[in-house]
């Protein structure tokens, strides 16, 4: 049981050492607020590990385990099976990992978890690079992005996490973002009641790594949705539903120009990204029908 040295409205302390304007902080507060106390969370090392705290102090008052980078889905599987083996069929086991821990090093464990139908909610907060180690590129880093390991801009597109989840035919998965909080909360609520694997892919703005003013976190993500750079949709019982359908997508440049990470993109590259985004959006709308 926790010794409360500080008061908090939710399950996360109000003073946590996430960068000012961090989207991950907004995400985890809303996620845990919806899930409630009957939750066990698995967090890998990375930005989100700061909620686990340092030494005997933690910034999170629910049962939690900090795992390794690549096996959040595996630890969550074990914990879920441990509870179920003892007749506890109510505690929600959630893995909360970044894009590196999910789409790079953790993809195998995640695939296994989804394929076996484990009763786990997997949340990927996607800040589109390895932020905690110093903004190195990941497979979820978008085309054209400059990072400390793609100094000339990334030359290939980002991996499609929801596409991978859908290929596993899990009961529920969805994308979400911090500019659409009610939509995010609704999706967490849905995932909470899924028996079996569910996955949320949440766009997570990072002022430090993306290069924008801390005040713009929500605005950047909103522009991401409006331009189609981040599509909001869900896959439920085999059907795709697009949650936000801009009639006319904003030029992606309006999303890109807010962030220094895209500064090295040429007009041709922006054009290529624009075409890829529009094609993806149209394909998605077709799949919905």
């Amino acid at each position, binding site marked *: 049981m926790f010794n409360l040295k500080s008061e908090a409205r939710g399950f996360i302390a109000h003073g946590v050492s996430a960068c000012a304007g961090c989207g991950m902080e907004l995400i985890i507060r809303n996620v845990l607020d919806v899930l409630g106390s009957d939750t066990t969370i698995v967090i890998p090392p990375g930005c989100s590990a700061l909620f686990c705290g340092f030494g005997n102090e933690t910034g999170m008052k629910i049962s939690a385990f900090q795992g390794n980078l690549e096996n959040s889905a595996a630890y969550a599987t074990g914990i879920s099976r441990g509870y179920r083996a*003892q007749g506890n069929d109510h505690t929600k086991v959630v893995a909360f990992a970044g894009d590196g821990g999910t789409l790079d090093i953790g993809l195998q464990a995640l695939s296994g978890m989804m394929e076996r139908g484990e009763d786990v909610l997997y949340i990927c907060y996607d800040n589109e690079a390895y932020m905690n180690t110093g903004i190195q590129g990941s497979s979820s880093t978008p085309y054209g992005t400059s990072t400390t390991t793609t100094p000339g801009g990334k030359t290939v597109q980002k991996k499609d996490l929801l596409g991978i989840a859908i290929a596993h035919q899990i009961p529920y998965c969805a994308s979400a973002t911090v500019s659409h909080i009610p939509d995010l909360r609704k999706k967490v609520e849905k995932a909470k009641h899924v028996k079996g694997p569910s996955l949320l892919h949440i766009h997570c703005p990072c002022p430090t790594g993306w290069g924008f003013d801390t005040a713009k976190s929500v605005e950047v993500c909103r522009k991401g949705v409006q331009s189609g750079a981040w599509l909001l949709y869900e896959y439920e019982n085999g059907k795709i539903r697009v949650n936000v359908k801009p009639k006319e997508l904003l030029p992606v440049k309006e999303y890109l120009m807010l962030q220094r990470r895209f500064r090295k993109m040429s007009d041709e590259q922006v054009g290529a990204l624009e075409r890829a985004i529009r094609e993806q959006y149209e394909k998605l709308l077709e799949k919905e029908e």
Partner: protein
Amino acid sequence: MAHYKMLDGNTACVEAIKMAKVKVVSAYPITPQSTIAEKLSEEVESGALDAGYIRVESEHTAMSCAVGAQLTGVRTATATASVGLALMHEVLNVASGCRVPIVMPVVNRSLASPWSLWCDHQDSIAERDSGWLQLYCENVQDIYDTMLMAYRIAENPEVLTPIMVCLDGFFLSHSMQKVLLPEQAEVDEFIGEYTVNNLKLDPEDPMVIDNLIGSDEITEMKYQQAIGFEKAHDVMLEVFEEFYQKFGRRKALVEGYRTEDAEAVVVTLGSMSGTAKYVVDQLHEQGHKVGAVKVVSFRPFPAKELRELLSGIKKVAVIDRTTGFGGEGAPMWVETKAALSDEYLVKGYIAGLAGRDIHTGTIEQVFRDILASDQAGEKPVWIDCNTEHAMNIREVNKYV
């Protein structure tokens, strides 16, 4: 009533796991461990074992699931071998650091490369510093007995340290032998229910487990683990004695055979120990005063017991089934050498790599050599190794 059954080593592990009533199984197949994964799934499928079976996609996940599940308060099972154990390496340290007392059979097999399916101890010895206890088995009855005792040792509140029960791949894993199996009630009485009073994942009594810790406290937490190993030594002696009282079979941390008056002994690990005893008997008939010493517990290493056992025996030959590259000797030799004073002649031998048979002739050769030696030499003797030929073992046509 206890009854005899013909079992191979892997099935003996499964019988023990079943009787320990584990609640979650996570296993990934790898030669020569595969039949453990298969048989456990059969036991779960048939209902003989009331547990959840996680058909994991790797050994890394197998160990992660075991750690996660056991932290919720249930006994878990997994098993592996060779490169599978190597893949677990990262999580082995989590299990020991979080004091999760998992009992895991390791079916010893050589590590790649070169690829081999056969037995040596490179895999488990490479995990020497992972914070796991390591017990090595001599025969199939020994495997079953050691598994049962392993639960008692690992789960002891003073120990709380995971344990590898090591059995030689194929030599034991696939060797059918007669095994005396006790009744479930006897096992229940011996092992008991799993209870956890340490770190536990429980939403009703929550804590955050395994977060970032400062270096000062880590030093102390590592010291806690060191104490765990010290306690394991004493707990093993208690558990061995209790097992003897209950089941009538004796076990020790290190076992001597005809060591009284011996001029030379051979120190062994695992299945070669039986061969060593046989050779000792034969050499006695020829008038040689030799003995054999089997190390049962490699971690903790029973230095004191070994010292007592070898007291007055001047020549000690140590057979390592692993290489110990770059050291003055291989790991078992290093431990033995460190346990004894400089008055002893402790000579290292490397044998049985990648399933190369350690047959009676091998042991005889070691005894002949140690009896004729008056110094240990600067490096270990590689048994049956054609050292002249070694550097030219392959010749290929290629552009240079």
